[in-house]
C-alpha cells in the first residue's frame, strides 16, 4: 500500500513536469508567432524636443554613445560662419583646431563656392554631445540634430538615456520609421514648436 502511494506521487510529479514543460513550449511558440506578426519598436530622439543637455554622450551604455549628430542638408544654410562648427566669438573663419566647437573634431568643413561651406559629420568620431546642435540651433537654423543610430544601438529594454532625458525627447518608434530627420519630420508632427 505504501509502495503504491509512493509510485503515484512520483508519477504525479513526472506528469506535472511534462505538462508544465509542454505548456511553456506552447507559450513560447504562441508568443513568437504573435511577435512575428507585430511591429518591432526602437528608441529614437525627437529633435524638436531635444534640449541638447549632453546626457546622450554621458549616459548611453555604449562608449562612445550610439547617439550621433546628423545633418539635414536641405535645411542647412551652408553658412561661412557656422554656429555649429565655430566656437562663439571666433572671427577668423578657418579650420584651426582651436576654433572648432566640437570636442572630438568630428565635423569637416568643406568649401563649396564663395561664400558657402558644407559641414560633414564623421560619425566614427562623434560622441553625441550635442554641442554643435546647440550652436546650430541657437545661431543657425537647426539643421544639425541628434539621432540614435540603429546600426550601433543595442536597443536596451530600458534606454539609459531616455531615463535621464530632461525633456522626454526619447521614445520608442516603429522600426519601419526608425529616424526623425528634420525636414522629413516636422515640428507639427512632433507637437512641439519649431526650431
Amino acid at each position, binding site marked *: 500500500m505504501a509502495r503504491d502511494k509512493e509510485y503515484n506521487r512520483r508519477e504525479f510529479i513526472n506528469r506535472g513536469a511534462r505538462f508544465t514543460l509542454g505548456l511553456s513550449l506552447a507559450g513560447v511558440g504562441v508568443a513568437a508567432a504573435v511577435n512575428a506578426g507585430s511591429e518591432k519598436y526602437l528608441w529614437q530622439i525627437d529633435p524638436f524636443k531635444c534640449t*541638447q*543637455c*549632453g*546626457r546622450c*554622450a*554621458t549616459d548611453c551604455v555604449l562608449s562612445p554613445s550610439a547617439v550621433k549628430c546628423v545633418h539635414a542638408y536641405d535645411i*542647412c*544654410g*551652408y*553658412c*561661412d*560662419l*557656422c*554656429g555649429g562648427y565655430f566656437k*562663439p*566669438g571666433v*572671427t577668423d573663419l578657418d579650420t584651426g583646431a582651436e576654433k572648432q*566647437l566640437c*570636442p572630438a573634431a568630428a565635423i569637416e568643413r568643406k568649401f563649396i563656392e*564663395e*561664400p558657402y561651406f558644407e559641414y560633414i559629420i564623421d560619425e566614427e568620431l562623434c560622441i553625441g*554631445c*550635442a*554641442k554643435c546642435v*546647440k*550652436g546650430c*540651433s*541657437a*545661431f*543657425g*537654423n537647426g539643421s544639425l540634430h541628434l539621432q540614435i543610430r540603429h546600426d550601433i544601438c543595442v536597443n536596451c529594454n530600458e534606454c539609459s538615456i531616455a*531615463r*535621464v*532625458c*530632461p525633456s522626454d525627447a526619447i521614445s520608442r518608434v516603429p522600426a519601419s520609421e526608425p529616424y526623425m530627420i528634420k525636414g522629413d519630420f516636422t515640428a507639427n508632427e512632433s507637437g512641439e514648436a519649431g526650431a
Partner: protein
Amino acid sequence: MKNKSLSFIVVLIIAAIIVVIVLDYSAKRPDRLGDNPYEYQFDEYKEVDTSLIGYRETKNFPVRDYKPGALDLYDNLLWIAGEQVLQVISLAGVQQMKTEIQGLPTCIEVNDQAVFIGFEDHIKKYSREGTFLAEWDSPGSKCVFTSLASAGEFLFVADAGNRRVLRYNLEGELMGQFEGKAESSAGHGFIVPSASFDLVVNSYDELWVVNPGRHALENYTNEGQLRGFWTAGSMNIEGFSGCCNPAHIAVMEDGSFVTSEKHMVRIKIYDSSGELKTVVAPPRKFLEEGQAPEVVVDENGVVYALDFDRNVIRIFEKNR
C-alpha cells in the same frame, strides 16, 4: 539560532539591494543630474556694459486675443497685423481700430494710400479704414515673404524663400526683381539661411536690405544696383551674431538703423555707416534664445519692439 542568523543576513541583503536601487533611481532623475560637461557657453556675450545702454523700457502694450505677426508705425499710429486681425493703436496704447483679416500675416507696410499686408506667398491690400481692396497673385513657388517697404510708387517685398527682392507698383503689378548680386565684387547676392530677411526705405526713399548671411546692410537703387553696404559680424555687442542677423531693422529720421537680433536677442542702434551708437535693450531683457522682436521707431527716437515670445509691444525711450 543558526536559522535566525541566516534570516537576519538575508533580510539585510534584501534591504541593502532596495537601498541601492532607490538611491540609483533617485540619483539618475533628470532634475538631479549634475552639470552638462559639454555645455555651450556664450554667457559672456550676454553681458553688456551699462554705459553702452542708452535706452530704458518705459511701458508696454499687451497684444491680447490673437497671435501678432507684424508691426508698422505710420501717422503716429502702431499698425499690428496678426492672425485674423488688423489692429491699430495710438502711441499711448489706445485702440483706434480693430478689424478682421484672413490668415497669419508675416509683414505689413502702411503708406498714405493703403495698408499692404504680406502673407507667406502673397500680398493683400486694404484701405486705411480696414476695407479689403485686392489680393495680389503669388509670384512663384517657394515664396516666403518677410518684409515690405514702400518708396514713392513702388512697394518692395523681401522674399526669403527665393533670396530676392521684388518690386511692385502699388496696384500689384510686378515691375522687377533682383537677388542682390549687382556688379560689385564685394557683394554676393542675398544669403538667407532662414526666414529672416528685412528691408526698409529711409526718409530719402533709399532702399536698404539686410543681407543676413553676411551680417550686412546693403543700399540698392530701385532697380537693384548695389550702391553701398556695411557689415558688422561679431558676437560682441558691436556686431551681429549667428547666421541670420539682424533679423529685423527700422530706420530713424537721421538715417540711423535700429536692429533686432534673434537667439541672443538684443536691440541696438547703428549710424548710417555702421558704427554702433547705443544699445536699446541687452539680451537679459528678453527670453533666452528667443525670437527677434519686430522693431519700429518714431520721429522722437522712441523704439517700439513687438516681443513675439511674450505677445507684447515694449516701448524703449532714451535715457534722460
